[in-house]
Each structure stands twice: as structure tokens, then as C-alpha cells.
């Protein structure tokens, strides 16, 4: 069966297509699709953009209002998928098993985010898909000007808004 794909329609930027790895990351894939299908990601922003590292989004509306999310999921970082350029992984708190809606796209090979041990320090970040179209769009997002907003660093000065996320 073909892997599910999701299009992120990003206002003024274009469309980024993600392919999700349902086989190696079943929990994260189902979790992401559930947020997509109920419209959670519509009108959310990429709120944390760090060039040479990653771009993170899926948790805030424009104006940095955090959207309520569902229960956190188990961390699947031990699935063998690596945090390589243009892969998509789940963001989280310092608790390894705390990912809910926020995700990030690696814009570099971030080997230090991979799973090394089943410990708080070594769990790493669960990759569950990759960009299959629109990496040039991701590159543009990586290049936007950022600054501090409230308690958050690296926030784009002009909102980078996901108008809608659709499963295709």
C-alpha cells in the first residue's frame, strides 16, 4: 500500500508535500493524519525557524496563540529513521514521550537528534516522513527573518501560515 501523503499549503510560499512512513512510524503517522483530518493545522504557523537546523510548526495560530492538542504519543525515534535533510519529525518537550501536534522539518542532517538510547537524553526525535515535493519552499521558509516574540525565540517576523493541510 502506498504511503500517505499530505500537502501543506503555505500562504505566499507554496505547497510542501510530505510523504509519511506508515510502516516504520505507524503511531506518529496516524497521529499526524488525525490532526490533518480534523483541520488542526489549518491556520497555524511555522513559529520556530532556525536556519541550518530545522523549521517547526503546527502548534500556534498567527499571533502566537497556542492551539489545544490531543494526548501526547509514544516516541517512535527508535524506528531506524534518521533526522536527515528534509525529513519530518515530531517536536516535543524535554520528556521523550510528549509529542502531540507540533512537528519540524530538518533543514540539515541533524544526526544528534537520532535515537541512541532509551533514556531521557538518548531518545531522540521521531522521524515519520519526508518532504517529497516543495523542498525549495522549505528553503525559503528557512531564510525568513526571525526575532524574539514574547517567550519565544526564532519566531518569523512575518507569519508563515499553513492555510490548510490536506491528505491526498
Amino acid at each position, binding site marked *: 500500500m502506498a504511503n500517505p501523503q499530505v500537502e501543506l499549503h503555505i500562504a505566499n510560499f507554496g505547497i510542501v508535500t510530505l510523504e509519511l512512513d506508515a510502516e516504520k512510524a505507524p503511531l506518529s503517522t496516524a497521529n499526524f493524519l488525525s490532526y490533518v483530518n480534523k483541520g488542526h493545522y489549518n491556520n497555524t504557523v511555522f513559529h520556530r525557524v532556525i536556519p541550518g537546523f*530545522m523549521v517547526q510548526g503546527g*502548534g500556534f495560530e498567527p499571533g502566537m496563540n497556542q492551539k489545544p492538542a490531543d494526548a501526547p504519543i509514544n516516541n517512535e525515534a527508535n524506528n531506524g529513521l534518521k533526522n536527515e535533510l528534509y525529513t519530518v519529525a515530531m517536536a516535543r518537550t*524535554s520528556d521523550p514521550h510528549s509529542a502531540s501536534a*507540533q512537528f519540524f522539518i530538518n533543514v540539515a542532517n541533524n544526526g544528534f537528534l537520532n535515537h541512541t538510547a532509551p533514556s531521557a537524553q538518548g531518545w531522540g*526525535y521521531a522521524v515519520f516522513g519526508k518532504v517529497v515535493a516543495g523542498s525549495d519552499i522549505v528553503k525559503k521558509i528557512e531564510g525568513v527573518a526571525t526575532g524574539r516574540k514574547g517567550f519565544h525565540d526564532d519566531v518569523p517576523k512575518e507569519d508563515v501560515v499553513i492555510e490548510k493541510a490536506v491528505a491526498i
Partner: protein
Amino acid sequence: MAGAPCPVPMPETTPDRFATLRAPAHWQAVDFISDLHLQAAEPATLALWQHYLQQPPAQRADALFILGDLFEVWIGDDVLAPQAQDTTPSYWRTCAQLLREHSRHTPVYFMHGNRDFLLGASALGACGMQGLFDPTVLAFQGERWLLSHGDALCLADTDYQQFRAVVRSADWQRDFLAKPLSEREAIARGLREQSEARKRGSAHDPSLWADVDAGSAREWLQAAGSQTLIHGHTHRPDQHDLGQGLRRVVLSDWDATALPPRAEVLRLSAQDGLQRLPLC
């Protein structure tokens, strides 16, 4: 900040920009070394290092951090294989044995340098070492210390940065490691001769080699939430004020045959902060 109430759920603020190692609370002191450039042709430096590793327990730190270029060159973990015929590999096995013994009582962390970047997982295991990404933030006694070998920040040396990008790529490393040991030895010898010739030709004096770019060092420190960068690579032990309360502390290289000989450990302790401990 410790114990401050946190009434709202923590937002998803990770991944962090840099790998972070949280020191266990019981650690009182850690040692940093780099640029020993261990090689069979220089037994005196190995002897100094052995002397350091075999200090009495009361003088030991709680952990040892090797920030790159422990070895003059590393051409593949198979140099540790017992079946290798060359005399050189037995030197590497001696080094591995010393490290393994030390790691039985003191955790040893290893970061790649520009000479030993091919040291892989099986050699780490054989030496009892844990690998560190470059850079890594060490959270120790309530402060964050940014650790790096330092070569990635020597941006003015554009030839080297190009070379680095090539040899650090997975493709180059796979191709190189697939070559027979003898061929890898020949390539490594060639690269070292080129590098030596460059140093002799353009700038024999280490003070003229490219140094760490201050702007980039500041940027790293700010992104890491750290005030102090500790690095090696440049062979210019010193401390530099980077402004805005930031600084970089440079480790010494080791050379037992230099006049005077150089060998030094940088010790960070809860009690005394940073101290340079000369070994000769």
C-alpha cells in the same frame, strides 16, 4: 530558577539547536583535553598521556572530555583489529587499552577532530568512550558550556572548509573506508604531507593559521544559551573575551618533544571554575 513553579504545560521547545549532555549532579570536576596528536613516532607524548591517565584517584576528575585530535590520524576502526600485520596498529591497540582502563572508573567522552574524524562506533566501544557531537552543550553545575573541536569555526580557511565538507560527507567516508588499509594509509600520508607543506610554505608559525571566527563563535554561544566556548584545534591556548559577557577558552595541544614541552589539562570544577593544569 531551580524548583520554580511551572503552572502551564511546557511548550514543545525542543529539539534544541545543539546536542546537550547533562552532567550527573554528583560530578564535581571534569577535564578537557584535545590535540594530543598521538602517533607511534612520538612515544614521549604517549608517555605523558599515560601519566595523566594513571593519576591517583584523588587527583582524577569525574569525567574526561576529549575535544578532538586525540590521534594524529585515524584511517578506520580496523586498525584495532588483531589480525593487522603492520607495526602501527599495535600502537593504536595500546592507546585503546589505556582508554578502556581509564573508562572503567571515569567516563570518557570523545569528539571528532580534523585528524581523527573517521573514528567510528566500534573504536569508541573498544576504547570505552562515548561519542559527542560537535558542538555539544555540557550542562554542568547550573551552567552551560559549549564544547567544540573548533575547526568548523575557522571560516577564514576556505580551502580547509571545502575539504572538510567533502571528507565529512557520508559518501566520501563510505568510499574511503571501503579501500584496503594500505591504500588508506597512503592517502592519509599524502594528505598529511600536503598539510605540512602548506604550513611550511604559507605560514610555519601557528599564530598565522586561521583562527576561530569571533562572530560565529558569539552566534553559537547565544544560540546555545552559553557564555563559554571551550575548543581546541588552533594550538593557541588562551582565553578570548568575545564581548557581551561571552568568551572562548582554547585548549593546549600536546607535544612532549617541543621546547619547552607542552601538555596541559583544562579542569572545570564546581569549586574553582576553570583551571589549567600543566602536566610537565
